[in-house]
């Protein structure tokens, strides 16, 4: 039995918990130094968790999105930067594994992801376009069998650490802004010239710097399906679900800390209900709402998976948007409750009840694809789409 097969013989949750243990150990240091969470990511690679979503015939373990989300929630409780890096990687892998079927290059690349535990980044944001995923200014130029692309990418999370980057662009220099393709470029096929630094309030380890991206690669590395389809059917839904899962993880760890604070107070004064106890009950109820929201979204995604019509339906987009809005808003309320419970011990860094990192990391949730943009998008759909009023869907 090889070392790799010994690892993969164990359950995904167990492997994720071990990696999370290491990520947790370095979480404060990653946050203070604003550096890539290399210990946590190395641990995920050692547990062979980078390629699990890929089909077994290409070397993966055929894991479901629900299983990936569970890993994100486990990591979110340990180190949000590690969890977010892992989630963003899996969003790219999901697009590759479902929207490059039959493409020999992409199939062999998936084998490499599994064998070498490669980390995939993404470059969608662009100067002049902002965060609108479905628009590109830059265009890929194909000459014979070679493709060339230059992109003024305002954000490439962990770009400097990635082994490959999936980049969106217009299909050709004559194409409309929304007529996009996605292309996988390998590390030795591109250069990155840094244009901005990542010194932020939270999520400080994702190192989401800006770069001028310049690449040349064989044209077969362009994904065969239009990016419009990948974005609508996979990328947006998977992002909201995996982010929601890791945001749940951040809030769950905050509630766990607040609970141990209340319990310690109860032990010190037997017979008296500690002052934060009621608030903890409120936080617990809100945490359950967040969990139910993510789990219901995962269930709906699993039911629609592989059914293009169901994934394209407006009601599906509305539901996924609602997962994002609900979780990103509610975790802030939860962590704020926890801060009130723990008081100065929560406000201070370096105590067992510190919540500063949680609160700062959680503030990114409303901004990663701005909630205002998502609410605008949902409100447009609700002009024609009837709200689903059934309880069970």
């Amino acid at each position: 039995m090889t070392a790799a097969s010994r690892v993969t013989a164990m359950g995904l949750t167990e492997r994720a918990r071990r990696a999370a243990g290491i990520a947790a150990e370095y979480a404060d240091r990653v946050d203070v130094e604003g550096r890539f969470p290399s210990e946590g990511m190395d641990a995920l690679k050692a547990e062979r968790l980078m390629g699990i979503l890929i089909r077994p015939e290409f070397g993966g373990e055929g894991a479901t999105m629900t299983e990936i989300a569970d890993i994100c929630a486990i990591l979110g409780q340990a180190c949000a930067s590690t969890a977010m890096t892992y989630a963003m990687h899996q969003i790219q892998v999901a697009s590759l594994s479902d929207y490059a079927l039959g493409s020999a290059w992409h199939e062999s690349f998936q084998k490499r992801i599994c064998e070498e535990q490669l980390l995939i980044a993404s470059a969608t944001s662009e100067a002049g376009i902002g965060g609108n995923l479905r628009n590109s200014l830059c265009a890929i130029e194909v000459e014979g069998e070679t493709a060339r692309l230059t992109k003024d990418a305002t954000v490439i999370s962990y770009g400097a650490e990635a082994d490959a980057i999936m980049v969106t662009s217009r299909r050709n220099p004559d194409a409309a802004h929304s007529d996009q393709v996605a292309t996988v470029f390998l590390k030795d096929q591109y250069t990155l010239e840094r244009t901005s630094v990542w010194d932020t309030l939270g999520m400080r380890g994702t190192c989401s710097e800006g770069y001028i991206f310049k690449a040349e690669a064989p044209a077969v590395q362009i994904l065969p399906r239009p990016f419009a389809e990948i974005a609508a059917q996979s990328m947006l839904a998977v992002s909201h679900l995996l982010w929601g899962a890791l945001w749940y993880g951040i809030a769950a760890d905050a509630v766990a800390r607040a609970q141990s604070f209340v319990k310690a107070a109860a032990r010190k004064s037997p017979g008296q209900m500690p002052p934060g106890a009621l608030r903890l009950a409120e936080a617990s109820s809100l945490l359950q709402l967040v969990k139910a929201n993510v789990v219901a979204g995962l269930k709906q995604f699993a039911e629609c998976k592989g059914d293009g019509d169901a994934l394209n339906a407006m009601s599906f987009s509305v539901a996924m948007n609602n997962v994002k809005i609900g979780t990103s808003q509610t975790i802030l309320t939860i962590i704020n409750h926890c801060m009130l419970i723990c008081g100065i011990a929560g406000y201070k860094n370096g105590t067992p009840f510190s919540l500063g990192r949680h609160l700062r990391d959680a503030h990114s949730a409303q901004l990663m694809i701005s909630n205002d943009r998502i609410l605008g998008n949902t409100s447009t759909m609700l002009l024609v789409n009837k709200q689903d009023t059934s309880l069970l869907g």
Partner: protein
Amino acid sequence: MKQAIRTLLAKHGNLPVAIESIDDNADLYDAGLSSFASVQVMLALEEEFDIEFPEHLLNRKSFSSVEAIAAALTEIREEQAA
């Protein structure tokens, strides 16, 4: 019907190219139709033809081309007549 669809696309579709240059079967999203504009066109069609798009037709495919919109409208009219 296709002419009426084209007129509404020109008015509400906010397309970067002239509607005359787009074939009946050409992909409207590739031609630059945004999801916001597609909803505006959908509302205009509902008003023009006095219909309501049912849930199963509220997806990208129904609006992917002039031909697809025409097929969706035909289906809705047949359902309403039945």
